[in-house]
Structures are given as structure tokens and as C-alpha cells.
């Protein structure tokens, strides 16, 4: 038997995390009304979280038995063996978080423009002028379609006194 390698990076860790989360959820559900009755507010949350605990345990067990079959499914594993937490993902998550945090101050239009420009430049890697052009076109299109046509209220920034 070769050294056990999980199917996907961190699969077992994720299963363990699910169990911890489910147990916490059960404990919180128990806190709602305890076992005081069968039709109280806490019963259904307890049923749901208990189901989560059982299924999460099964998922963890399955991740162990999957490893034993690696010899038979070597090709499939090669294909699916991409890492889950990539640099690209982390950069994009940081950009998105920055975008959402900046939105109340900068307002929707400016924050979106900055986010789109940075993400286009990072993901698409064309010249800055092309990225800038696409950014301007997209923000204008989004603004007119949603603000003017659909009459959606877009977040306004505090920085420019709600101008944008």
C-alpha cells in the first residue's frame, strides 16, 4: 500500500471542521429550549444539527475509505488533485474583501471601478489601457442598467458626500 494521500488537499481537515461546526450547532440548538418538549422551538434545529453530525461523521469515514482505493483510481485523482487554497483565490478574496469594506466610504461606483480594474489586471493580464477601458465600459453599463433602468439603489460613499 502506498502512502495514503487524501483525494483533495485538506479533505479530512474539512470533514473534521464540519464535525466541530455541527457539534457546536447542536449545542446551540440545545440551548434554545433543551429537551423540555417535542414541539418547542429548539427541536427542529436539534434534529437538523444532529443530522449534520451523523452525516459529517460518515463523510469523514468515507474520506478514509477513499484513500484505500487510490490504486484503482489513480487517473481520476491526478485530475482532481488541484489544491483548494490557491494563491489566485487568496488574492481574489483579499480584493473582494477590500472592495466590500471600501464600498461604504468610496461608494458603489468608485469602489467597483477600482475593484474591476485591479481584478482585470490581475486575472486577465492584458495591457493596463485595455483593462482600464473594459473597467470604464463595465461600470458605465452596470450603472445605467441598474441605476437608471432597474432603478436599483446603489450604495453611495461618505467620502464624496454621496455624489457617486
Amino acid at each position: 500500500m502506498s502512502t495514503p494521500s487524501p483525494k483533495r488537499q485538506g479533505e479530512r481537515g474539512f470533514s473534521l471542521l464540519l464535525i466541530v461546526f455541527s457539534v457546536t450547532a447542536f449545542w446551540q440548538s440545545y440551548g434554545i429550549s433543551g429537551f423540555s418538549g417535542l414541539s418547542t422551538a429548539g427541536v427542529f434545529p436539534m434534529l437538523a444539527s444532529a443530522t449534520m453530525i451523523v452525516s459529517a461523521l460518515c463523510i469523514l469515514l468515507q474520506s478514509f475509505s477513499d484513500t484505500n482505493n487510490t490504486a484503482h483510481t489513480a487517473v481520476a485523482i491526478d485530475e482532481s488533485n488541484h489544491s483548494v487554497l490557491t494563491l489566485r483565490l487568496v488574492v481574489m478574496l483579499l480584493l473582494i474583501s477590500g472592495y466590500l469594506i471600501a464600498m461604504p466610504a468610496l461608494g458603489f461606483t468608485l469602489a467597483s471601478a477600482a475593484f474591476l480594474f485591479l481584478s482585470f489586471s490581475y486575472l486577465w493580464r492584458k495591457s493596463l489601457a485595455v483593462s482600464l477601458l473594459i473597467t470604464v465600459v463595465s461600470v458605465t453599463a452596470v450603472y445605467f442598467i441598474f441605476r437608471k433602468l432597474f432603478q436599483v439603489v446603489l450604495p453611495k460613499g461618505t467620502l464624496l458626500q454621496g455624489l457617486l
Partner: protein
Amino acid sequence: MGEILSNMSIVWTDPWLLFLTAIGTLAGIYVGAIPGLSVTMATSILISFTFKWPVNDALALITGIFMGGVYGGSRTAILLNIPGAPSAIATAIEGYPMAKRGDAGEAIGLTTVMSVIGGFVGIAALAMFAPIISSFAIMFNSRDYLLLGLIGILLVGTLSGESFAKGVFAGALGVLIGMVGLDPMTAEGRFTFGNVSLMGGIPYVAAMIGFFGVAEALVQLHQLDVAVVRQKVDRIIPKLRDVKRYLGLALRTSGIGTIIGALPGTGGDIAALLAYDHAKRSTKNPDVPFGEGCKEGLVAPEAANNAAVGGAYIPMLTLGIPGDAVTAVIIGALFIHGLKPGPLLLVETPHLFWFIVGALMLANICLLVFGLTGIRIFTKIVECPKGVLIPLIIVLSAVGTYAIQNNPVHIYWMLLFGVIGYFMKMYGFQVGPVILGVILGPMMDSNYRRAMLGARGDIGTFFWNFVSHPITLVLSIALIAMLLSQTPLMRWFYRWRAARRHPGS
């Protein structure tokens, strides 16, 4: 009858509604076709924009998007071998080899016509059976709704995911998310942690957009560098001979599609695969072998998945149970507009039901028109690079989430659900059951408690009620059969039966 016809014709005679349905269908085709954009994503983002619209306008647009989106997936399946939607997986098996032979236009033309035929079969079934089921559903008890909810979530969980346990986990997580907030019966706080903003519950539109929009966009980051292969597209109007030849098969598979679509929890993807299987078994001598560009294998799944649209509306409108992830989102939209999908919808607001039937018919006609035209612009748009598409999805998701209540906190929820959804998807979980759980959880909770109160809190009576009433008994048996089929018990049974049939082997 006159009233029914007049309600059905509203969408055909009002130019604005006509425009909305047409634009919805067109947008649906493109959204469904662009790999990385799903019809569920589009619907969940769009319903937040239609929040302030009159209900008819919103229904017209959403109906168009749904109809167009289910069909749109076939385009990319044929041209790029990437199913734009899960319901187009079977289409790719036969469509792409046809495209490689140089028959992409013919494949698209045939798919379009058969999709439209399938669509009409589904709509006819909706118009005929929904009123019957609705009058039957009025007899349903709270126990029955609890069972239907469970069956719906479990079916979506079992049929679409990597494993049954993962499907169950996703469904239960959704139910739990749906429980957050003040309990509607006793006003006790559930998972509110003393936080006022949690008392109103977690906004389900934020959950939908997070799980279907942001999570999907993040998953797409892995496929940034996949190159697009172009195909030559010429003659697109299908030959009349072909349409006539495959009409019988299309009608049969439309029937399959409608029934599968109407079962709670199963949608176009399952319908398409079953129809493909039917075509494979019923076609004795295909011109081209299956898997190498066989037209039968193309016609069957496409007719079925569009028929499933009409079918999926049946449980949604008559029982309030969504057929799949898209219908779960549409139910969310109906709730937002103050409608209550369920047996009373047809009694209290029959005009809306017939309006939806009319809109579906119009969307189907639009599908025919748009499906057979504009193919050249289409190939350009589909080639939109992912590096541009992904950031745009994020921006649209943010606008959509904010639009619903103008609350910036919802956008943070959206991001949180997006990240959770990303990891779930990467580890082989489906996010459809989560949304089904969020929508159905509160309904199941209140029905469970009503059933328990009806049994006066006695657990024996509670369980006895599940077998002592005919409708409930049928549903209970269905649920138990479903659960058993997923346990090792069933595999042992099959092995034992096989061993008995072939004692020597």
C-alpha cells in the same frame, strides 16, 4: 374558460411584458450558454432587482430567463463540449462529436426545435395537471408537507452530489440556516446570540447569491486558463425530414422530462440523463453509434430538459415545494412578491397561475426565434474571457444583494456564504440542497410542530399518524424507500439477489 384565456393572453398583448419575456429568454440563452454563468446564478441575482417591480413584470422576466437558460446550456455543450448547465451534459456527449464533424449548425437547429416541442409538452402538462394536483393538495396535512420537504431535499442531495452523506449534510445545513432568527410561533430567538440584526433571520437572497454567484465565480478561478476551441457553424434551420423522424422520440422523452421535472427535488439534469438513456435503449439501429454524434441522443435530452421546466412548475405552484435549485430560487422570488406558492395559489390567485402559463408559452416561442438566429454574435459573446467574467459576477452579486433591502451587512453575508460555498463545492458538496433547505426549513419546522401538536405531544401517536392516513402512508413509504436505497442494506440485498440468480458465479 374566457377568463383563463384572457389571463393567459396578458403577456402576449402588453408590449412591455412581451418585451420583458423576450429579453429574459434572450438573456437566459446567453447566461445558460456562457460556461461559468448558471441560470440559477442569473435568477438569484435578478430576483433582487425585480423586487420593486409589479409582480407580472417580474414573473415575465424570470420565466423567460428560466426557459432560455435551460436551453442555453446546450449551445456550449455542442460548440465547446462544455455543458453550460448540468442539464446539458447528455447533449455534449452527442452534440460535440456532431460539431467536430462540421454539423454544429444542424445540431443547434435540431436541438432548438426539439427543446421547443419539449417545452410545450411541459407547459401543457402544467396547465392540465396543476389544477388537479392543487385540488388534491388541499387535502394534504402538515405531516404530508413535512414529508414532501424531506423528500425534496433528500432527492436533490442524493441525485446530484458526490455522496449521499454530503447531500444530507448540505440539506441539513440549509435547514439550520433557515432556522436563524425569531421563531415564528413563539418569538424565541434561535441562533441570534443577542444580536438584533440576526433576529430577522439570515437574508436568503444573500445566501442564494453567495452560494450560486460568488462561490461559482471563485470555483471558476481554477479554469481561468482553459482555451476555447472554435467550431464552424453554417446551416441552422433543421431539415423537416429530421424533425418528422425524431418527433415521436421527442414526445416520449418530453413525457419523461415532465414527470421527472414534476417530482419534488428532481430537475432538468436528471430528466435529460434518463431521456438519453431511454433513447439509447429504444433506438435499435441508429445511423451513427451513440457517443459519436447520434441525433437521437441529442434530441432526447434536449426535449426532456425543456419539458422539465413546465413539470418543475407543478410542485412549485401547487405544493410550494421547489423541484430543483432554480425553482427554489423562483419560490424565493414569489415569496418576496408576497405570493404564497401552495395549494391555495390556484384558489386565491388563479389569474397569476394562468399568467405564468401564458408567459411560459411566449418564452418558448421566443426560444424558437432566438435559438435559430444570431448564432454568429453568440459565438463571440461566449468567448468572453473568464478573467473579465469573474470580477463582473462579483460586482453584479454585490449589487443584487444590496438591492433587496439596501443593507450593506447583507453583502458581507453574501461573501461569507460565497466562501463557504466555494469550499463545499471543492470538496464535492452540492450547494443546491443548502438553498432548498433554507427555503423549506422554516416550512418543515412549522409543519413538524403542527403535526406534533396535533398528536398532543405524544410520540407514539405522532408516528402512528404517518402510517394511518393513506396520503401520508404513500409519502412515508417513498421516503423510507429513498433512505434505504442509499444504505449498504440495499447493496447487500442486490448482491444477495444476484447470488441467488447465478449460484455458480
